[in-house]
């Protein structure tokens, strides 16, 4: 009997009136866990009952503890008829199952009813006593920590990153069971909520088991999704990155809460070291759980019949440490060799992380993605798998049919996609995929499975156990140029997987870099960026004939490559229009509907100093003889050039230009230029500093040969930049802004539009969709205007097509204020901080901040360095003299792959030679210690409800996260049969989303937390039937409950009680 769950029902408040006669309620509570139910007494005639019950005790297996939610039902006692349910509270007790997290759940929970919404609140206390159980063959995985955050959580250190874990479970959807015909909507909704809760628990437990097998103790970047497949069932699936985390015990200054283990810390069944060495800045024993004896995975992991991706786990130790010693050989090869040994044994060397510990990410290859169209009904169907990003090779595959009722089927589907991703990564010379994610889009019986990530080369140090650390790290960092290493190509330049233009890195001059870089990860914190970033979206609609089953799947498969291509082209054009050269956080969503496909790609564009200056966009007409046409073309060209110039100004992209310099010898072009349409190569005219004639150099030629292309160009120009004071990005941090202040506002906005005309064209559709997204953004800017200057971060668009002519767009993001005037000051502060952290950094890194400290520019060979650049620096690799001489060369490339020629042919002429290498150092670390001068006002005493912040980011500006309390993963259904009375669809959904926020906040507060980080609304499925006055909505949200302490408070606290565990922060009273 490994666990005892104790529950106490304290009181209720604001209950609804259940007895019309007395205007009061006779409430009592049922507490249910598993199959055991307890009841409180009936508290007569009160809307604020005080039950003050005894402790209800459930003695249960820890397996059940993980799977089952605690279910609390509030009812109105009725002597004569059946008791009326007021509402329910589901409490996930998982956070109580591992040490370091919450020890008690206690607080006011909204009582939720799927028909009426929130109806009052109930005060509940929950505790768990776990008994030690070292049974090796157990099915539970208590003690494994889960994090939604896609980076190493702030108060932890990654000892080993083990790799990819995945699992899925399948069940029948209660909504489609026969019994649903006779039960009430409420019963059906509750059955569904409960089932998904159960399945989530089971899934998490199984993933936990896999992590234990891999000898990890945590899952980072945990992403759980459910697929509503209708008749064919309900799939809950999850992916994550298994890690061994070590609680950080920073010396004195910060994180007092992390220092001492909580007194109430439970005995974990998992032999995790509860008391990490408080001064181990370097890892002492990476393997904390050595008592946990390891046996071949097959022996005990497969009692579950579900997901069965074979994970060959036992990494060969020794290789890493062995090769760490021999240094000096070609580093890339060495790394590859090591990474290979560490990662290749894993079936899928994927990481769901988007931000990495320093030194882990060595090179980035580019975006890899794969999609496949499946029929949810045991039918043969052609499948399509593509890869996109910097590589474009498409294949059509025929796959065998699968029995869709078994989880193995879904598993196999995903396994194939993952395999595809893996091979794409290999083609890019990479052994790992980072920033990996998976998604589905379902319409009737057709399902598009998508996976994407960024091919990368990783430093094996983190991926192996038992590696002798320190020495390797040191060497690698000495050899890797700061801030540009990840841009260097991982593949062999003579044997490139796709046509690309390589130049020597503009930062270090040593390695080759591509001309553009697309990734799904966050901008690495040490990346050198010029100016600010911005949100870039590509939007696309394609009409499709309505079809059934196989024909439908085929039609979709045929459309997909064209969509991918167009999305990519749009992204590329918009990127160039912004004058930038790299995309981060790229997320391409393809949504399937009855009669159309929608593509929406979002990413954050930046100008990486290491990459060449992007060329402009040149328009070319087909009929050069027509005078008016020519005029029109030149007019458009002018507009485009103006836009680029404007954007450069807006985003402060001023890559310092030095007229004459050497970038090394021209890189030999491996490809022939046989299919070139145009080329341009004129003599250097870069004498003028402010030459903005993009049409003349580095041109990306847009051929206007038909109305479609015209439309494309027009749509390029319709994107309106955000109003002044606003910036937006879809990554964690905004490149180029680092002086965040503490005000944050997370929000969700939903729009549904009905397309009016029946005979829509693709163009009209595109226009509508574009308008929808642009208007939505405009609305956001308008609503948040009081927060300026501010930045919308982690802007996450989701598109769905709930019905024939309906388009639903859901946006979740957070607005963060920043201080315009503090840039310089904070840079200095940052520099000082970096100095303090000198022990960790090597000397080369330190040179940056040191130079920043002195206001005068160091005497570099850059006469043209502009004075508004705060700092000018470059890496020390190339002698300045060498850079001063110039080489003028031009090259051309054909960016089109053969398969796509039938659509359009676009050419790019590349010309280089005028790019200067002065570099702006903008450390974009949001948590940049001491960057926050603005402190929030002291909390107002009159507030009785503690403030809980929510953010999709992994951090809270101006604050330190001191404790992770556990994962929040909640699923709600809301239904109404009185839609009009509730204010129509808008009123209904507005209220529901507000209620979801409230329930998330209440759970976090009950855990003792004051914020949710890495919050994400994974699903928002809205269905309406206005004629019947009905609507239904399903929402799935998740995030990490945390305790944060304002940095200002921290200083005070650490001064007052240096070594005391900062309990006050855990009481939930910390308000801001």
């Amino acid at each position, binding site marked *: 009997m490994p666990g005892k769950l104790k529950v106490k029902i304290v009181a209720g408040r604001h209950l609804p009136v259940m007895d019309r006669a007395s205007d009061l309620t006779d409430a009592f509570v049922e507490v249910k866990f598993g199959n055991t139910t307890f009841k409180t007494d009936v508290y007569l005639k009160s809307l604020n009952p005080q039950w003050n019950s005894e402790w209800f005790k459930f003695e249960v297996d820890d397996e059940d503890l993980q799977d089952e939610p605690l279910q609390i039902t509030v009812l109105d006692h009725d002597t004569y008829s059946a008791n009326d349910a007021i509402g329910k509270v589901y409490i996930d007790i998982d956070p109580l199952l591992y040490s370091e997290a919450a020890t008690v759940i206690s607080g006011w929970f909204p009582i939720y009813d799927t028909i009426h919404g929130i109806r009052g*609140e109930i005060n509940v206390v929950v505790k768990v006593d776990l008994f030690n159980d070292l049974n090796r063959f157990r099915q539970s995985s208590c003690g494994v920590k889960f994090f939604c955050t896609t980076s190493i959580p702030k108060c932890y250190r990654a000892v080993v990153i083990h790799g990819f874990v995945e699992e899925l479970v399948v069940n029948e959807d209660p909504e489609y069971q026969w019994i649903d015909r006779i039960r009430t909507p409420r019963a059906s909704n509750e059955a569904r909520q409960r089932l998904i809760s159960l399945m989530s628990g089971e899934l998490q437990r199984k993933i936990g088991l896999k992590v234990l097998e891999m000898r990890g103790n945590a899952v980072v970047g945990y992403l759980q999704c459910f697929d509503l497949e209708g008749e064919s069932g309900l799939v809950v699936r999850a992916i994550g990155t298994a890690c061994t985390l070590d609680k950080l015990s920073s010396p004195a200054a910060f994180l007092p809460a992390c220092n001492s283990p909580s007194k109430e810390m439970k005995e974990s069944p998992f032999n995790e070291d509860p008391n990490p060495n408080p001064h181990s800045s370097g890892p002492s024993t990476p393997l904390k759980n050595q008592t946990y004896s390891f046996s071949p995975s097959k022996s005990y992991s497969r009692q579950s019949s579900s997901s069965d991706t074979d994970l060959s786990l036992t990494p060969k130790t020794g290789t890493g440490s062995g090769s760490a010693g021999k240094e000096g050989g070609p580093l890339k090869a060495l790394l590859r060799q090591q990474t290979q040994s560490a990662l290749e044994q894993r079936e899928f060397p994927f990481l769901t992380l988007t931000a990495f510990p320093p030194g882990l990410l060595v090179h980035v290859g580019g975006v890899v993605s794969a999609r496949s169209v499946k029929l949810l009904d045991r039918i043969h169907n052609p499948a399509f798998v593509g890869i996109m990003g910097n590589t474009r090779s498409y294949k059509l595959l025929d796959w065998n049919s699968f029995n869709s009722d078994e989880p193995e089927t879904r598993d196999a589907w995903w396994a194939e996609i993952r395999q595809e991703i893996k091979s794409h990564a290999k083609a890019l010379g990479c052994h790992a995929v980072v920033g990996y994610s998976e998604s589905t889009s379902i319409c009737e019986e057709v399902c598009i499975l998508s996976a994407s990530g960024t091919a990368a080369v990783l430093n094996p140090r983190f991926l192996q156990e038992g590696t002798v650390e320190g020495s390797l790290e040191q060497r690698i960092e000495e050899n890797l140029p700061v801030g540009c290493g990840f841009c260097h190509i991982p593949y062999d330049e003579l044997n490139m997987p796709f046509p690309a233009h390589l130049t020597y890195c503009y930062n270090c001059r040593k390695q080759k870099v591509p001309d553009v870089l697309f990734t799904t990860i966050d901008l690495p914190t040490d990346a050198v960026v010029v100016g600010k970033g911005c949100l870039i979206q590509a939007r696309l609609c394609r009409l499709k004939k309505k079809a059934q089953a196989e024909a439908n799947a085929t039609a979709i498969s045929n459309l997909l490559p064209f969509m991918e291509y167009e999305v990519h082209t749009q992204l590329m054009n918009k990127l160039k229009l912004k004058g930038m050269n790299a995309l981060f956080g790229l997320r391409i969503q393809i949504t399937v509907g009855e009669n159309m496909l929608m593509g929406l790609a979002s990413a954050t564009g930046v100008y990486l100093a290491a990459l060449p200056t992007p060329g402009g966009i040149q328009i070319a007409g087909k009929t050069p003889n027509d005078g008016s046409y020519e005029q029109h073309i030149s007019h458009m060209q002018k507009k485009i050039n103006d836009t680029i110039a404007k954007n450069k100004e807006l985003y402060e992209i001023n890559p310092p230009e030095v007229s004459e310099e050497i970038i090394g010898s021209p890189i030999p072009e491996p490809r022939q230029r046989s299919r070139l349409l145009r080329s341009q190569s004129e003599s250097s005219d870069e004498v003028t500093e402010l030459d903005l004639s993009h049409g003349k150099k580095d041109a990306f030629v847009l051929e206007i040969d038909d109305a479609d292309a015209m439309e494309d160009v027009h749509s390029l120009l319709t994107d309106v930049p955000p109003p002044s004071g606003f910036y937006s990005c879809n990554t964690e941090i905004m490149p180029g802004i680092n002086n965040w202040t503490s005000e944050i506002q*997370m929000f969700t906005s939903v729009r549904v539009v009905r397309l009016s005309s029946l005979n829509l064209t693709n163009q009209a559709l595109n226009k509508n969709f574009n308008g929808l997204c642009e208007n939505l953004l405009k609305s956001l800017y*308008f609503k948040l205007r009081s927060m300026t200057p501010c930045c919308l971060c982690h802007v996450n668009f989701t598109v769905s097509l709930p019905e024939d002519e309906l388009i639903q767009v859901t946006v979740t993001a957070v607005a963060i204020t920043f201080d315009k005037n503090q840039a310089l000051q904070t840079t200095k502060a940052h520099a000082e901080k970096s100095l303090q952290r000198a022990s960790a950094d090597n000397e080369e890194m330190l040179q940056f901040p040191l130079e920043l400290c002195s206001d005068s520019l160091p005497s570099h060979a850059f006469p043209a360095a502009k004075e508004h650049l705060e700092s000018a620096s470059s890496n020390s690799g190339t002698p300045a003299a060498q850079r001063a001489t110039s080489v003028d060369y031009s090259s051309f490339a054909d960016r089109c792959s053969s398969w796509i020629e039938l659509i359009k042919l676009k050419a790019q002429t590349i010309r280089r030679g005028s790019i200067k290498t002065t570099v702006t150092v903008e450390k974009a670390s949001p948590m940049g210690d001491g960057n926050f001068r603005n402190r929030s006002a002291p909390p107002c005493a009159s507030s009785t409800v503690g*403030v809980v*912040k929510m953010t999709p980011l992994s951090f809270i500006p101006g604050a330190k996260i001191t404790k992770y309390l556990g994962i929040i993963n909640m699923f709600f259904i809301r239904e109404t049969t009185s839609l009009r009375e509730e*204010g129509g669809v808008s009123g209904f959904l507005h209220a529901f989303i*507000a209620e979801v926020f409230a329930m998330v906040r209440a759970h976090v507060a009950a855990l003792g937390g004051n914020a949710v980080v890495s919050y994400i609304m994974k699903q928002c499925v809205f269905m309406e039937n206005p004629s019947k006055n009905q609507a239904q909505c399903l929402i799935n949200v998740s995030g990490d409950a945390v305790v944060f302490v304002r940095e200002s408070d921290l200083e005070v606290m650490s001064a007052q009680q240096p070594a005391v565990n900062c309990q006050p922060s855990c009481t939930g009273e910390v308000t801001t």
Partner: protein
Amino acid sequence: MTSELDIFVGNTTLIDEDVYRLWLDGYSVNDAVALRVRSGILEQTGATAGVLQSDTMDHYRTFHMLERLLHAPPKLLHQLIFQIPPSRQALLIERYYTFDEAFVREVLGKKLSKGTKKDLDDISTKTGITLKSCRRQFDNFKRVFKVVEEMRGSLVDNIQQHFLLSDRLARDYAAIVFFANNRFETGKKKLQYLSFGDFAFCAELMIQNWTLGAVDSQMDDMDVDLDKEFLQDLKELKVLVADKDLLDLHKSLVCTVLRGKLSVFSEMETNFKNLSRGLVNVAAKLTHNKDVRDLFVDLVEKFVEPCRSDHWPLSDVRLFLTQYSVSVHSLDGFRHQVLWDRYMGTLRGCLLRLYHD
């Protein structure tokens, strides 16, 4: 392309003060959008009319959802659905309970139980305040009245505690509740020159001195009802005008002191008996509910108007009233000094406030 659904939900509920005002003023979404457009917001922000419409709708929906909570402000503080900073909560409540001068003058002293739609319709037409806003204000009065009507303790404190209003607003509501409970007539034509502030001032004085709570703070502490015993006793004052000798003596005492000090001395001298009779008769009549209701009418008729027609300056009125009340202490035959002070002290304050154009 038509918008079916369009919402924005923030973790911290966004409150736009300008839109809140428009909503409180009872404007429809379309009218509110039109008014916002006229305010020049589009030019300031570069937004489009569509954006404005969507924004206004969002705010209106939020306010609509908040309204239920605003009916019991402590609920707004304890609820979990909307995360609103305390300062904003206070603003929401205060603004919601703020009323229009024009409206309150129409309903002050009227029975609050039956605010028929027709009555409010008329008020709306008369004052130019939207019917929706009239309804909200009326319902606020009614709600506050219902909650504190039977409550013990200080009226202002009760209102503040249950509706979390500012001191200023709580005092106003105390006056409204007091007037509604005692049904003072305020709508007569001759009372039109009086502002709500004038009445509120009087109400406060009367609550302080003439209610049950005024005498005994522990027992039967009711601020809303006038002290019935006190009103009964006021009949005793009649002797001041009924007894001819007493009246003459009173007059001579006052005149002796005020001679040469008043610019309107002769007018005062000739009118003294009328004025005194008026004031004392008002007191004596207060035993009847109907006469209580007419208190302000009587005061204006019997005192304010005669003085005004003789162009008494306010300073003279003050001097006269002071002397008039004080002199009674020198009347040997008069035994109800305490009663007189309780009556006249309040009345003097009221009359001075009521005495203006």
